[in-house]
């Protein structure tokens, strides 16, 4: 009897603990993302709630109405949707193609092609913005080579160019998401079809693509959301044509005194709704749960032999790499090594001055860089840990909760950083309970890091949830039956199997934060300012050279750190005796080994 009582009490305590920890995690999500966002958006209906001289809760629907009365606003909405949809489709196709050719085809130079998405992924967007302006301006580098026919320039700084640059920058996301799913797919179902003498195209059409549908949808939505929230590219490349997007309108609404919060809030609401519509549509169209693809019996897949076509594919991949990577990075490198832009690439214009200043430990540039490194490491660690904890909680709860949180995370990706920035100031400087907190505290680096975690968490969450979602539940169930407790199961089974995805999430966060601007600006600490602000100042004062040098340095450090982490990870994995072939370890086919 006592024994029974103990068992009961134990299971009660266990579930209490579980409930408490899940509440804690949801609370964190709410505080990091939900509340700041609410504070901005609520001003759509309560425009005066944060009025400095006369705060009140008077309701008004005026701001909402302005969306429809201001043609530039609803035009911006249209443009944003147009752009985001097209880029979503293009980038998913391009990224998926990369995933397939690297994992499944015996192309020449396979390893090199496999690295391309990673390097594109590691190159920050705003750097490419600077680069493309350098390249495509009438006085830019391509013109210098005579490679810029007059019409191309104006075509580029408009919708086509913007679409191209976005797609070329975002396709790695699709590669990783689809690649992950592909890895778990194996060849069994294909082999079964082939035995029945079905052609390869039909197999892909009828078997593989439907199985990959969840990954394809996730890619599209994630990229869609990212394009919606983009500000850097839109404000530079598209502004020169008449292609205004919503994020720019939000920026304009908040760039002077007094800030038009209601308008900014309304527009943020629109962005949120757009993504929500996409997510809901996806859920409705695909009722089935995500396929559990990493199971206890996955077997490696076999390659397609392409023969001569392999060379064609590889060349095309390199062309993509050239346009997406080599050209822009090359432009940045050249600019970093030259004194002025107007002198172009004339020999006497080359100098090491910029690089020297950027790497000078005593320079402001270097200080800013090291600040950002520190912030990025801390915030990414916290964000990834939080993402793993949250994802694990959700696994135990149910499909609906998981779906909702995933949708929430995707919607958060669509929120421009500037809205987060303001939301954080409102929350931690104006709200009664929070403004008296000493840690985190507005004006200190503690709040900046918190803000970074808030913007980075959705990305980490998406990556980790997608990965956990692929684990077959039987892996955990069998461990349970062997008496393995929850904590131990997480450490010994779940974490190792999603470890690489977590690492990817970490690197993603790290890069994002290192180059994140609006939150850095709004939550700038009184001392120890982060790098992006400094780089922006350089760019604003037309000191492209130093800005490029600093950005290059940041990129090298970030890339180098990522490489070290990745190599370390592989070393640890091999120490644990895992087969290099490890399907389960979700290593990208940098190896291409089979």
């Amino acid at each position, binding site marked *: 009897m006592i024994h*029974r009582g103990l*068992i*009961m009490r134990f*299971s009660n305590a*266990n579930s209490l603990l579980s409930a408490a920890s899940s509440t804690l995690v949801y609370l964190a999500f709410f505080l990091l993302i939900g509340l700041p966002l609410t504070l901005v958006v609520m001003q759509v209906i309560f425009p005066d709630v944060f009025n400095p001289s006369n705060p009140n809760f008077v309701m008004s629907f005026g701001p909402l109405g302005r969306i429809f009365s201001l043609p530039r606003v609803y035009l911006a909405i249209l443009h944003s949707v147009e752009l985001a949809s097209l880029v979503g489709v293009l980038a998913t196709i391009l990224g998926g193609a990369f995933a397939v050719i690297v994992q499944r085809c015996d192309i020449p130079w396979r390893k090199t092609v496999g690295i391309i998405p990673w390097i594109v992924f590691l190159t920050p967007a705003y750097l490419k913005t600077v680069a493309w302006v350098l390249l495509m301006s009438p006085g830019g580098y391509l013109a210098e080579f005579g490679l810029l026919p007059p019409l191309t320039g104006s075509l580029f700084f408009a919708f086509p160019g913007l679409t191209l640059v976005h797609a070329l920058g975002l396709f790695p996301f699709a590669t990783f998401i689809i690649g992950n799913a592909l890895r778990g797919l194996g060849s069994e179902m294909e082999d079964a079809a082939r035995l029945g003498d079905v052609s390869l195209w039909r197999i892909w059409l009828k078997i593989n693509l439907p199985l990959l549908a969840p990954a394809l949808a996730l890619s599209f939505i994630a990229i869609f959301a990212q394009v919606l929230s983009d500000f850097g590219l839109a404000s530079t490349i598209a502004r020169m044509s008449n292609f205004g997007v919503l994020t720019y309108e939000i920026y304009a609404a908040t760039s002077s005194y007094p800030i038009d919060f209601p308008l900014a809030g309304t527009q943020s609401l629109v962005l949120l709704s757009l993504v929500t519509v996409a997510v809901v549509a996806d859920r409705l169209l695909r009722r089935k749960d995500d396929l559990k693809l*990493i*199971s*206890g*019996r*996955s*077997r*490696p897949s076999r390659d397609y032999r392409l023969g001569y076509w392999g060379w064609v594919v590889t060349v095309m991949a390199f062309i993509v790499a050239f346009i997406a990577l080599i050209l822009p990075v090359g432009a940045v490198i050249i600019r970093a090594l030259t004194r002025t832009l107007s002198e172009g690439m004339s020999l006497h214009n080359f100098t090491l001055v910029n690089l020297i200043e950027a790497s000078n430990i005593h320079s402001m540039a270097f200080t800013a860089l090291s600040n950002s490194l520190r912030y990025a490491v801390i915030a990414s660690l916290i964000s990834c840990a939080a993402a793993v904890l949250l994802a694990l909680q959700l696994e135990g709860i149910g499909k609906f909760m998981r779906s909702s949180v995933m949708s929430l995370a995707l919607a958060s990706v669509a929120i421009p950083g500037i809205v987060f920035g303001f939301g954080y100031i409102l929350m931690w400087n104006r709200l009664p309970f929070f403004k008296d907190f000493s840690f985190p505290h507005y004006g200190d680096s503690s709040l900046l890091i918190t803000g970074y975690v808030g913007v980075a968490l959705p990305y980490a969450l998406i990556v980790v949830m997608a990965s956990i979602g692929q684990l*077959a539940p*039987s*892996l955990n*169930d*069998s*461990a*349970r*039956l*062997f*008496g*393995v*407790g929850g904590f*131990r199961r997480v450490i*010994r*089974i779940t974490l*190792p*199997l999603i470890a690489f995805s977590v690492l990817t999430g970490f690197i993603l966060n790290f890069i994002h934060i290192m180059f994140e601007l609006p939150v850095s600006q709004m939550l700038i600490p009184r001392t120890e300012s982060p790098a992006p602000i400094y780089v922006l100042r350089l760019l604003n004062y037309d000191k492209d050279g130093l800005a490029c040098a600093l950005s290059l340095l940041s990129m090298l450090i970030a890339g180098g750190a990522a490489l070290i982490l990745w190599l370390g990870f592989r070393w640890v994995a091999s120490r*644990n*005796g*895992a*087969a290099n*072939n*490890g*399907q*389960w*370890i979700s290593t990208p086919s940098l190896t291409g080994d089979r």
Partner: protein
Amino acid sequence: MTAELFCHGVTKHLGGRPILQALNLDVKAGEVVSLLGASGSGKTTLLRCIAGLMAPDAGTIKLDGKTVFGDGLTVAAEKRRIGMVFQDYALWPHMTVAGNLSFALQSQQLSASEIQARVENALELARLVPLRNRHPAELSGGQQQRVAIARCIAARPSLMLFDEPLSNLDAALREDMRTEMMDLVRHEGLTVVYVTHDQSEAMAVSDRIAVMRDGLLAQFASPQEIYDRPANAFVAGFIGGFSALPMVELGQSEGYLVIRPEDACPVTDYPDMTITGRVSARAFQGRCWRLTLEIGNSRVKIDWPNDVSLDQSLQFSLPPARRLTVHH
């Protein structure tokens, strides 16, 4: 190490539909019982309820006399000392074969040397010693299955559950694996609940078979009993190519005649019964031909010594001892 299983009144609804309806099941110590049924019959659900991976809505489950579910009490799956072989084997892909085995034992409060000993023992028993350092991805389906079983056996569970363990194997391999599996199980004298949809498999391995339909037990008896005396048309239809011919086709008002394909013989042998049908399909089976006859609105399968062309009319009879009629 062996235990009796007692399930009483186990009920479960999922998504509004009743999956298990007040099911009763008892398994004696050391007995092998199969849960046989089509998909959706609730057999996997019952298995998961027994394992503790799912909680029934009502009912009692007792293991070796101790209640693991019921009377407001639930023992967690971790504590039930039940071993389960999953359909996908659930081998932890990042651990070697030996790693899989030892990890499974590490939460059982055993000393390191005891764990080592059991792992070695299990590897030998399942003939996995040369594969001990391989990872699951490097093993064939049959080998993976052996690892799954060895892993369970090493933990010395009181009850073993099998969830369609052979369905992922090639047909040729199935029979051999089945024999090997059951040898291991019998050797350890384990109590087993075995879920399958393949009736010949159930017949081959079990001491008793629980035929399930829509969450209820249609019949719970030894394979011989079920074969000789299926309780109703559903069970009859489930077993080995049996056909349940509605008696109305033979001029009677109700009931079904159970026709076992191997019982069909020429009318001349037993002229007191004649059943006429039209051949609608034929398949060569090596020893004989399996013919599908259309009788009125029903179809019947019989084994026939020689080939008969399609659309031919055929008459056959059944020995008196093999004319079983059932209801519903």
